[in-house]
């Protein structure tokens, strides 16, 4: 026994050591990660973020340098905080708070201490930086918007959050990332690849040379420039016309699906979201829950399309063979179904064929057509599925699957949708509002514009997109393959003729533009808001869709102006002017232009929040804007024209 005490001790200690080694090196050891290794300094080299050009090659977005003060908390040595705070222009409580936050995030990974110093502050700080161990300056590049337009198109970049870093380990604290618009949807192309050098440190935190001769280093890769389909001139013009209004304008080139302009009103200067003021400004925009400047109405606004949707019903009717272009429907200043009545602007006894039905936007004509479609086989449920299928082939009722960062599905109801509402019986009259684009139908401006582009193309469309070209790369294939609708080509002619007549003799005859054959359709959509728990009707939305010229169309667009009343009052004017601007390059209808600058709808928008009873539609008078505002807009217009 005495012989074995030491023998056993040695063996047991040996086993314990091996066990401990196993615990340290196998059980708790994660695969060695160069990023986690605090014996290596990671130096990032941020590449140039890609520039953005408009379709005519005009530079829209460039870069400007900025400097972040970074901190690695565990490397911080005691310092003269007072002097440091003065240099950074922060107070001591902010210093402590930021330091604690950085420490909580990680004691050994860098965090942003003060973001985006100006060049002047940087110059002062740079010389003194070596006094403050654990702090260093990281150069980054911020965006610089050449023109104050297209905030909703271009989007912005901002610092990544914890969630971004978790989702994609490429990012580290303080990196900038596209947050909205094309900055977000083309983030991977624009950002390039940041360079990374591993530098061996010693325990005094001194650099002692590149780690393994730099074999793990990553060379920076420049971000690629992109060209977008937006026409900056048209975009700026559209934004000017939409001042003091809310709504959206989408203009598409039908022959390619390229988005020429995408106006969301109200909008803001994209330069507001650059630099140290970003978060303050962002909060301000974000907190404006009434005007919602960050809400991209042209992509996210789901509206009942109203009368423009009649075009859809006409096309379906023709395709299903339930009407012919020449068949007439008599209007009794409305349409009677059961014991209910849908009013119409036509005089009693007017007989409309398809062209005049569209021209006069006859509710009776389309209610009849809609019922014929649904009742074709005597089964309204089957009928509505057919109807829904045709409408969806135009890209309605679902995401367009394009390269825009936000979007909405809209809504095209079908049998399933109504099953819950009408579980037992279902007749075509139940959903008669769909005939005139109200009821359960909802579209976003871009969907409606795309529908018009498909009509302009007589039966097909390209998925609307915003990328025109990428430096050294091609654009995704899905944007260059036409998508065919379920409507045969020959059925488009009477509908287009009807749209042409809208301009010639119909609801938009006051909006004609010399030498351009425009096809259009007005829309006036009832809408409601809940005010003090009472469903209250507001002034109708003004909607207009159009394309031009009639043959070889170059532009198709949809305009929504919230609470603008009838279609040609606001939306139609915007549409006509933008068509003229795009096709001719100059404006002859300066009367329309002047009217749009003169009249705004801010008072209309203020009504529901006033807490007082108010009048709508024909009982309300549209108010001109202040002279000062009008003059400001005039100034902008003048400056814009001389550019």
């Amino acid at each position, binding site marked *: 026994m005495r012989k074995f*005490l030491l*023998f056993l001790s*040695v063996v047991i200690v040996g086993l314990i050591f091996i066990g401990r080694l196993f615990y*340290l090196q196998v059980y708790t050891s994660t695969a060695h990660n160069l990023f986690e290794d605090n014996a290596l300094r990671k130096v990032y080299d941020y590449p140039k973020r890609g520039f953005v050009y408009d379709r005519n090659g005009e530079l829209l977005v460039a870069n400007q340098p900025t400097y972040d003060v970074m901190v690695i908390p565990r490397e911080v040595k005691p310092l003269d905080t007072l002097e440091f705070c003065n240099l950074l222009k922060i107070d001591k409580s902010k210093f402590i708070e930021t330091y604690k936050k950085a420490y909580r995030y990680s004691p050994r990974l860098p965090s942003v201490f003060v973001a985006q110093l100006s060049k002047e502050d940087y110059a002062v700080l740079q010389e003194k930086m070596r006094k403050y161990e654990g702090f260093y300056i990281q150069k980054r590049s911020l965006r610089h918007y050449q023109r104050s337009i297209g905030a909703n198109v271009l989007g912005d970049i901002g610092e990544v959050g914890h969630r971004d870093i978790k989702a994609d380990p490429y990012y580290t604290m303080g990196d900038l990332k596209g947050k909205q618009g094309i900055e977000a949807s083309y983030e991977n192309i624009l950002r390039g690849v940041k360079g990374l050098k591993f530098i061996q440190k010693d*325990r005094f935190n001194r650099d002692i040379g590149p780690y393994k001769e730099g074999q793990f280093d990553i060379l920076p890769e420049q971000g690629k420039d992109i060209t977008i389909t937006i026409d900056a001139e048209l975009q700026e013009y559209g934004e000017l016309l939409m001042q003091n209004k809310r709504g959206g304008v989408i203009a598409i080139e039908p022959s390619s699906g390229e988005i020429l302009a995408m106006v969301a009103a109200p909008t803001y200067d994209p330069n507001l979201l650059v630099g140290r003021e970003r978060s303050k400004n962002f909060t301000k925009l974000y907190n404006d829950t009434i005007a919602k400047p960050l809400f991209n109405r042209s992509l996210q606004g789901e509206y009942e399309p109203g009368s423009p949707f009649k075009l859809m019903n006409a096309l379906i009717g023709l395709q299903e063979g339930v009407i012919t272009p020449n068949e007439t429907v008599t209007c009794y200043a409305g349409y009677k179904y059961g014991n209910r009545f849908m009013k119409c602007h036509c005089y009693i006894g007017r007989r409309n064929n398809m062209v005049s039905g569209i021209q006069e936007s006859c509710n009776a004509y389309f209610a009849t057509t809609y019922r014929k479609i649904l009742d074709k086989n005597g089964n309204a449920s089957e009928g509505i599925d057919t109807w829904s299928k045709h409408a969806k082939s135009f890209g309605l009722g679902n995401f367009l699957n394009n390269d825009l960062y936000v979007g909405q599905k809209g809504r095209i109801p079908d049998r399933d949708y109504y099953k819950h509402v009408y579980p037992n019986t279902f007749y075509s009259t139940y959903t008669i509002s769909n005939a005139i684009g109200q009821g359960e139908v909802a579209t976003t401006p871009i969907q409606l514009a795309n529908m018009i582009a498909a009509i302009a193309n007589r039966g097909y469309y390209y998925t609307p997109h915003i990328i025109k070209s990428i430096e050294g790369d091609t654009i995704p294939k899905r944007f260059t393959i036409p998508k065919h609708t379920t409507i045969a080509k020959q059925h488009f002619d009477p509908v287009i003729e009807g749209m042409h007549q809208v301009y010639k003799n119909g609801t938009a005859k006051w909006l004609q533009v010399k030498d351009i054959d425009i096809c259009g359709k007005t829309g006036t959509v009832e809408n409601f808001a809940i005010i003090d728990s009472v469903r209250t009707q507001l002034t109708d939305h003004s909607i207009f869709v159009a394309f031009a010229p009639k043959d070889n169309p170059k532009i198709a667009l949809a305009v929504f102006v919230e609470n603008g009343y009838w279609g040609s009052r606001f939306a139609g004017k915007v549409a006509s002017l933008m068509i003229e601007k795009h096709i001719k390059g100059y404006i002859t209808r300066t009367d329309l232009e002047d009217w749009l600058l003169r009249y705004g709808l801010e008072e209309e928008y203020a009504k529901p929040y006033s807490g007082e009873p108010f009048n709508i539609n024909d009982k309300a008078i549209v108010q001109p804007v202040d002279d000062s505002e009008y003059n400001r807009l005039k100034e902008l217009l003048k400056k814009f024209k001389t550019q």
Partner: protein
Amino acid sequence: MVRETNRHFKFDWITIILFLLLVGFGWLNILSASHTGETIDYFDFSQPYGKQLIFILLTFGLIIIILSIEAKFYERFSSIIYIISMVSLVGLFLFGKNVNGATSWYAIGGMTLQPSEFAKAATALAVAKYISDLNTDINRFQDQIKTLAIIIIPALLVLLQNDTGSTIVYAAFFFVLYREGLPKMYLTLGIIVIILSVFSLKLGFLITSIISAIAIVTLHFLSKKRPPILKSIAALIFCIGLAYSVKFFYQDILKPHQQDRISLWLRLEKDPEKLEQMKKTFAYNLNESEKAISSGGITGRGFLEGTRTTGKFVPEQHTDYIFSTVGEEWGFLGSTMVVIVFVLLILRILHLAELQKSQFSRVYGYSVASIIFIHFLINIGMVMGLIPTIGIPLPLFSYGGSGLWAFTILLFIFIKLDSNKINEW
């Protein structure tokens, strides 16, 4: 003449090979831990790895000398060697050079010599000599005291020089004495003292007293041959007294930095901020060395490839913390190999010691095994955070000429004694 030509065959080559493995592999790790640039000049005398290479080469000369000397010499002159060694320790108080707070070095020219390293071998010889004396009976209290004195003198001298680590090494002789017949009571006592100390520090005086009371009462009534009640009461008083004095010892005798080490080891400190503070100060080495070992993974980062080693993150890495280099660069496989080689070496020496015919050789061999074992236990245990920080080198592995030579002498005297066992009748 026949004896002359066959001499080298009698040396235990297994031990020698294990020795060479440790020295060679140790040097590779010293190179890794101490090289500074891309180019390595192996004979750069200003660098630890260069110096160590020269120490190693000189070691071979030393080995030849040790093996050439007659085996009987070591036994006969053990007392003189011991006395010279003790004098050299005392001389430190007059001529010693102070390094890192310990006055343990003689500076001779550009070199330093650490006599406490050699004192272990001298003490081993003296203990072997005394115990193997026919007049000595280890069961006799008087002789126990005398043996203890031989051990205590060098231990006390190095303690006074502020070299706590080397003092603790003399505890190794407990194994030797126990093997040679020290009453079992001492072993029991030692284990009880260790357990009670840990309990008392970790759980507090009161709980420890209660636990020991329950244990003693249970033992008292369960024993078949019931011990006298007075004996049990005495044991209880002893336990309670010990539990109390441990507290006193910890708080009033230990220096603050020693308290901190124990408090960290037993996880007595609960305040996370204070713990963080500890990790940055005295526990920095331990923290870095554990991290370096962990980062090695299964296969290690490769020779000269460890970022923590290259960056000199672990202070004293080429001396006391050399094992963390093995951990980082050679991984679980390499570290386990080192542990196994040490275990084999110690067991081999033990085995040989048991085969000795003379008691002197056996006791000496046992001492060699025990001393290497204690170093191995404390050093690797400390580097991996298993025992409190105690600064002693890893035998044959760590940087340092005195250490290397002292262990070479210690080991090769035994190899010589072993080779001579055929003549011991």
